[in-house]
């Protein structure tokens, strides 16, 4: 439960950062778009029910749409992403599965798994976003290109945040005094 509340707080925080700061992160003529709120979706607990995940994705997307005036694009992308997230998580999960109340982190799962899951989720999100935005079959190749470019940028951003603010290993230094007072 504690993990779930922390994750919801993280989702809210990432949405806030997206709205206040990262909304301006649009580069290379719209080919690279920053969507920091995906980081909140990545950090959702792995044992979260698929229905809850779907609802959270829809709510996050709708909230971003309302603020950024993107008219349903983020909601659509959020729903598709959160619908696929449980399968994507299973895809990269270790053989024995994730431990209970677990949200992915570099400390527990290593850089490989974190970057793989971030890339998959980001790509699904960004591809859906650009595909729905294009609304034409002929624009799907450019949606894939934009998806890859934006995913690269976003994953770098998530890695930086994970490195700076992610869970840290507990200090191994011995705190007991060597002197026998």
């Amino acid at each position, binding site marked *: 439960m504690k993990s779930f509340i922390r994750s919801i707080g993280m989702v809210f925080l990432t949405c806030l950062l997206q709205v206040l700061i990262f909304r301006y992160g649009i580069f290379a003529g719209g080919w690279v778009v920053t969507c920091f709120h995906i980081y909140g979706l990545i950090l959702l607990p792995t044992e979260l029910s698929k229905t809850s995940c779907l609802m959270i994705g829809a709510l996050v997307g709708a909230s971003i749409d309302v603020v950024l005036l993107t008219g*349903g694009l983020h909601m659509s992308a959020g729903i598709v992403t959160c619908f696929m997230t449980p399968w994507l998580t299973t895809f990269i999960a270790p053989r024995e599965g994730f431990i209970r109340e677990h949200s992915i982190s570099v400390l527990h799962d290593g850089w490989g798994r974190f970057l793989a899951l971030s890339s998959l989720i980001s790509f699904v999100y960004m591809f859906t976003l650009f595909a729905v935005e294009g609304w034409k079959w002929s624009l799907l190749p450019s949606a894939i290109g934009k998806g890859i470019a934006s995913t690269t940028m976003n994953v770098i951003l998530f890695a930086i945040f994970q490195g700076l603010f992610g869970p840290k290993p507990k200090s191994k230094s011995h705190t007991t005094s060597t002197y026998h007072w």
Partner: protein
Amino acid sequence: MRTLIQLIIRNHRLVLFVLLEMIALSWVASTHAHPRGNLAKIGMEMSASWTDAVGRTINFKNLKENNSSLLIENSRLRTKNLGYQNRSITNTISKFGGAWKSTPAEIVRYSTSFKNNVLVANQGSLSGLRPGMGMLENGVVAGLITEVSENHSLVLPVIHLNTNWSVRLGCFGAVGILNWSGESIEYATLTDIPLSEHILPGDSVITSGFQGTFPSGILVGKVEELIVTEADEFQSVTIKLSANYKKIHYVEFMSKKDSAEIDSLLITTAQ
């Protein structure tokens, strides 16, 4: 039917996904293809209120600075506007119409609960202020400078027992003297109005411009009620003052560029 319900329950996640996706795509369609769609309108309204709330939160700390810059801008525009008004009058009535200049300031000390109230503004002689200049609050008459130091000015507001103000009823009405009775800070009394003058509650009371303190036509207040005494040849009028002394903060001081020339003429005549 039961089978259908069981099927929906069994695949509720898929059904929910399709339902939510349909909502999202219809939103996309309404905002991209038909911008006047209801969903788009709701989205726009919500977005506007959200952005407004976020913007207000962000800009709150800049409010004072924004107010000051608005005051300066307002003052500059008023000076320009009065210059244009005088120019048009110059062409038709007088050859030598004087230009008015507005100087913005902030009230830093004030009293409204005494009989002889005073205000202190944060601009003084260094900003070009001098005794005799009129003070406007939100574009309406509020007071008059009596003393200036280098950085501050002492202002007598309309709500001061020892002040008299030359005002006019409407654009072409009679000129009378406005003074404050010392009772309520919202009301003052206009005297010396001939009985022949037809006055109605709600009529505007504006500056006459004869004192040289304000340009003519600046709003002072509105007529609240008439006080007529049978034995008297004049009638009195209770005026509801337009200046809000409870919330007074940002003000402007009016100065006429050729007032020194007019003053020298008056002194010569008096001698």
